[in-house]
C-alpha cells in the first residue's frame, strides 16, 4: 500500500507515533515535510482543468503526481479555526490538477470527475491548539469527510490530538489506518 504523509507541523511532535504505526503495516511511507518544500500557492488560473498539470513548475508539481498515484494520503496539520493550517491548505489548493475537466454527480452532489484511476483513502490528523474554540474538533472531522467526497476517496478517517498529548491517541492511529485499509 503506497502511503504519502503530508506533514505541516513545525516540530517532530507525534512523528514517531505515526511512523511506528505506518512501519508496522507497510514498511515505509513517503514523508513530505511541507516546512521543507519550496512551493508556490495556487493562482486559481484553472489551467490544470484542461491539462491535469499545474502551470507552476515547482517541486510540488511532482509531489501532487505522487499523491495522485498513492493508495492513502495522511494529512497531519495543526488545526486552525477548525480546519487546516494555512501551510497545509497551500498544499491542498495545489491538488486541483487531480480533478478532471468534466463534471459528475457524486454522493448526490455536483463534482468534477477524478483523474485518478483509483483515488486514495484519506486520514486527517489534526493537532488542536490550546486556544481552540468550541467545536473546532468537530469541524475538522467534518472537513475530512468533505475532502473524501470531493476527492472521491473510498474511505476516510480523522483523528484529533491535543497538543502535547500524542500518547493518548497511540491506539487511534492504527485503528484509523486499519479502517482505511479495509475499505479498499
Amino acid at each position, binding site marked *: 500500500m503506497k502511503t504519502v504523509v503530508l506533514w505541516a507541523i513545525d516540530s517532530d511532535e507525534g512523528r514517531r507515533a505515526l511512523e511506528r504505526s505506518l512501519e508496522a503495516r507497510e514498511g515505509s511511507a513517503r514523508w513530505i515535510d511541507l516546512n521543507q518544500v519550496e512551493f508556490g*500557492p*495556487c*493562482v*486559481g*488560473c484553472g489551467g490544470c482543468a484542461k491539462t491535469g498539470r499545474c502551470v507552476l513548475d515547482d517541486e510540488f508539481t511532482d509531489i501532487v503526481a505522487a499523491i495522485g498515484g498513492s493508495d492513502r494520503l495522511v494529512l497531519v496539520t495543526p488545526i*486552525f*479555526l*477548525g*480546519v*487546516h*493550517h*494555512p501551510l497545509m*491548505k*497551500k498544499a*491542498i*489548493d495545489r*491538488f*486541483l490538477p487531480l480533478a478532471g*475537466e*468534466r*463534471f*459528475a*454527480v457524486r454522493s*448526490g*452532489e*455536483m*463534482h468534477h470527475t477524478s483523474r485518478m484511476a483509483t483515488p486514495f483513502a484519506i486520514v486527517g490528523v489534526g493537532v488542536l491548539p490550546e*486556544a481552540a*474554540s*468550541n*467545536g*473546532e474538533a468537530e*469541524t475538522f472531522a*467534518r*472537513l475530512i469527510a*468533505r*475532502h473524501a467526497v*470531493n*476527492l472521491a476517496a473510498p474511505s476516510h478517517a480523522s483523528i484529533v490530538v491535543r497538543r502535547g498529548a500524542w500518547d493518548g491517541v497511540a491506539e487511534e492511529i492504527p485503528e484509523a489506518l486499519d479502517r482505511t485499509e479495509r475499505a479498499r
Partner: protein
Amino acid sequence: MTVVLFAGSPRARSNTRSISADLRIRLEAAGATVVTLDPKRGEEATPVFIARSIEALREADALVIASPVYLDLPPFKALSWLHALLEEHERLAEYGPNVYAITHSGYFEPVHKAVSLRAYEHFCDRVHWPWRGGLAFGGTSPIDGRTLGEAGPFSRRVRPALDALADVIAGGKLVPRKLSARAGRSPIPLPRTLVVWLMNRMLKRQ
C-alpha cells in the same frame, strides 16, 4: 458606518472581486463608507498589509470576508490573512466589528461552502467578534471576473441577494435564514444530473 471588505481570491480575473465590487456599490448606496482590502498575491500576510488591515478594522462597524472555495475551504490567501491577523488577537479583541462572509464556487450546492463558513465563525469565536452569518453562492464560474451586470443571467441569484445583504449589514443584523437559503439555490433550476450532462456536452463542443 464603515465596512471593511476583504477579497480573498488569488485569481487575476476573480469572481470574488466582481461580487465584492457589486456589494460595495450597494453598501455605499446605503450610506456606508467601504474600505476594500484586496491584497496582491503574497502580500496578504505581510506585516505591512496586516498593519493596514488592523488600522482599517479599528474603525470598522462591519467586516465582510469574501472568498471562493477551493476543495471545501477558502483558498490559502484568505486563510493566511486570517492566520496573520490572529497573531494580533490581543489587539483585535479591543475592537468588535460585526462579521459577515460571502463564499462562492462553481458547484451549486451550499454544502460545498459550509465548512468555510464554519471556519469564519471559529475566527469570530477566537477574537470575540460577533458572527452575523454568511451567504454561499453556487454556479458562479460563468461570471468569469466580469461585473455582475455584464454577467447577466449568470448573476441573477447573486445580485438580489447582495442587495438584501447590504441592508442587513447596514442594519447590523443577522443574515436571515431565508436570505441564506435563497442565495444557496441553484442558478439553473433543472435536475442536477441534467445540468451535469449539459455542462459536459458544452465542454465536449469546446
